[in-house]
């Protein structure tokens, strides 16, 4: 694995050539920031902050055709997932989220759709220098220059970008750009460490998550759940825009004699989530649903996969229209008897 420097005057050529590889990068589209395809000749500007829609949407699309069907003997058709992609400018938190979600999709049933997309994607991360107000990655095991889930980590050193190959896939990509890159010296790596520390020091909000997974089962009936969920609208913002939320529903769309089976994002905050055919719902109110959201991330996932399913990106707290603030909930969990 190598650490290379990309002088900034080579950036347009670098992204221009990447554009030929099915490139996605953060872009503002009609006022909402998300990963969008980059065409040859497009300018890629990586600014501070993060996308509203996390890059999970590229690996785990909001709606995905599982297969198409039609009446007749050979009426089944599987979608082809065979196009490689490069994701540029993924924040370390969102890349960690991919590594965390991988565990679920690789669990007892290996999900071919997600895993194929994951395998075909090369993730180029961008270390953070200016954390947002609700960033708390360092409270949940991440950091502004964390490498988990990434193939290449990119750090803005001012005059140039440092590009560190982290996986074979990432290294192979770097090797293709040898003509634009120069070997990074020890000073560049030292500078990276320093910048990462400076960025971590700028993180404003934090919560001590130690003990939370152990405490949650004992707080099942605690009044805190009523308190923190009373204002909840039961909408899908916090889950849809969470980089680790991965619940989906499966529906058939049929027109005449043909149709498709597709899966789409689901949200545990919706009233019909886990509603049984009988009409009974084991999570009948927003209290149980909020409790489930927190428990899933901070207890069940830890039990099953040994890691908290939250990367501290702060989107849920940022985007909730009624100020249901994850950091505040976690602090209340810590403070509960």
């Amino acid at each position, binding site marked *: 694995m190598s650490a290379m420097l990309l002088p900034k005057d080579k950036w347009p050529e670098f992204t221009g050539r990447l554009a030929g590889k099915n490139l996605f990068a953060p872009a503002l589209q*009609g006022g*909402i920031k998300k990963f969008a395809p980059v065409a040859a000749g497009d300018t890629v500007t990586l600014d501070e902050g993060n996308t509203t829609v996390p890059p999970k949407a590229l690996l785990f699309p909001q709606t995905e055709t599982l297969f198409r069907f039609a009446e007749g003997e050979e009426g089944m058709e599987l979608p082809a997932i065979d196009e490689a992609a490069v994701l540029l400018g993924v924040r370390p938190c969102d890349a960690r989220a991919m590594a965390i979600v991988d565990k679920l999709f690789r669990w007892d049933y290996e999900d071919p759709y997600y895993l194929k997309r994951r395998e075909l994607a090369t993730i180029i991360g961008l270390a953070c220098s200016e954390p947002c107000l*609700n960033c708390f990655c360092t409270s949940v095991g991440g950091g502004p220059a964390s490498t988990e889930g990434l193939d290449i980590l990119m750090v803005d050193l001012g005059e140039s970008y440092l590009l560190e190959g982290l996986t074979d896939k990432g290294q192979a990509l770097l090797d293709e750009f040898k003509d634009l890159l120069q070997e990074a010296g020890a000073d560049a790596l030292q500078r990276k460490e320093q910048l990462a520390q400076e960025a971590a020091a700028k993180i404003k909000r934090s919560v001590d998550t130690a003990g939370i997974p152990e405490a949650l089962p004992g707080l099942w009936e605690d009044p805190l759940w009523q308190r923190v969920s009373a204002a909840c609208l039961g*909408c899908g913002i916090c889950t849809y825009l969470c980089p680790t939320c991965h619940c989906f529903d499966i*529906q058939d769309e049929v027109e005449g004699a043909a149709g498709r089976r597709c899966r789409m994002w689901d*949200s545990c905050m919706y009233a019909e989530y886990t509603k049984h055919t009988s009409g009974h719902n084991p999570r*009948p109110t927003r209290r149980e649903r909020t409790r489930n959201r927190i428990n899933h991330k901070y207890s069940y996932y830890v039990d099953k996969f040994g890691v908290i399913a939250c990367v501290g990106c702060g989107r849920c707290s940022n985007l909730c*229209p*009624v100020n249901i*603030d994850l950091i505040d909930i976690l602090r209340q969990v810590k403070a509960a008897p």
Partner: protein
Amino acid sequence: MDLNKLRETAAGIVSREDVKYLIGWRRGTFGYRVSPYFIEDAAGVEELIFSPLCISNLATYLTLVERLPVPRGQQPDERKVALLVKGCDSRAVNQLLVEKGINRDRVIVVGLPCPGMVDWKLLAEKYPETEAPVEMRWQGDDFLLVHNGQEIVVPRAEALAEKCRLCRHPNPVISDATVGEPVQPWEPAEDSGVGEIEAKSAPERWAYWEEQFSKCLRCYSCRNVCPLCYCEDCILDRLNPTWVNRAFNFSENTAFHLARAFHLAGRCIECGECERVCPAGIPLGRLNRKLAKTVREEYGFEPGLDAEGEPFQASYRPEDPEEFIL
């Protein structure tokens, strides 16, 4: 706004045995955020606030609260719910009463004359959100912002929310108790948002909404926050038949938004919550205000001004106009 008077009134209400809780606002956990706040006892009123950041319409909680089956042998909780309302919010209460969505005997309405609310997103670039919650107050015609320990006068025009620039009813139209003196209604601004759409040709409008609806994430925050979107069994959630597929694409997204807009025609009280909560920045207010405008101008009808009467869509007069129908 005399906060002490408000807290005193609230304490009196929540101390009553026949009151379950009072829904108000409290300071949020960071930045400009304010949170809906459910107060069950008199001690809770200490955190109650009413400031230019209390833009959210709490009337939605009257119908959002789940009504679970009462276990055998238990009595249903028949206690009243008290609610703080601004002018726009109070119209939602009236509309719910007209539609028999809520029972008048079960609601205590505390009216707060509203000098206008702030859209904090208009301020965030100049005065970024801080870890500590910021405070805002009304000062004369303007707003006073306490930001990083500094007191800053923000001119009204710089921060007034769009719905408030267009407001025709700043004083509550229904209340059991009022705190504060009625405010002098201001001249509503020209609705430039609706004007922009009206100036477009039909293909341009289609292109405009195609771009907007394509952004929709189908998180349903607009539906859930809407005080008048309270069907117990929403067609969007129906699976058999599936009226609207959950698939995320322009066609299904449009079906969703048009269904909602038409269901709100003559019912929307223009509180602007749908647009405020949308994480994708879809200008839903323009859609709903256009319908409200048509209803107002063609039928002389404005929903939510009266607790009695017929719902607009349930009334018919032979002389009803139809010129606007394409």
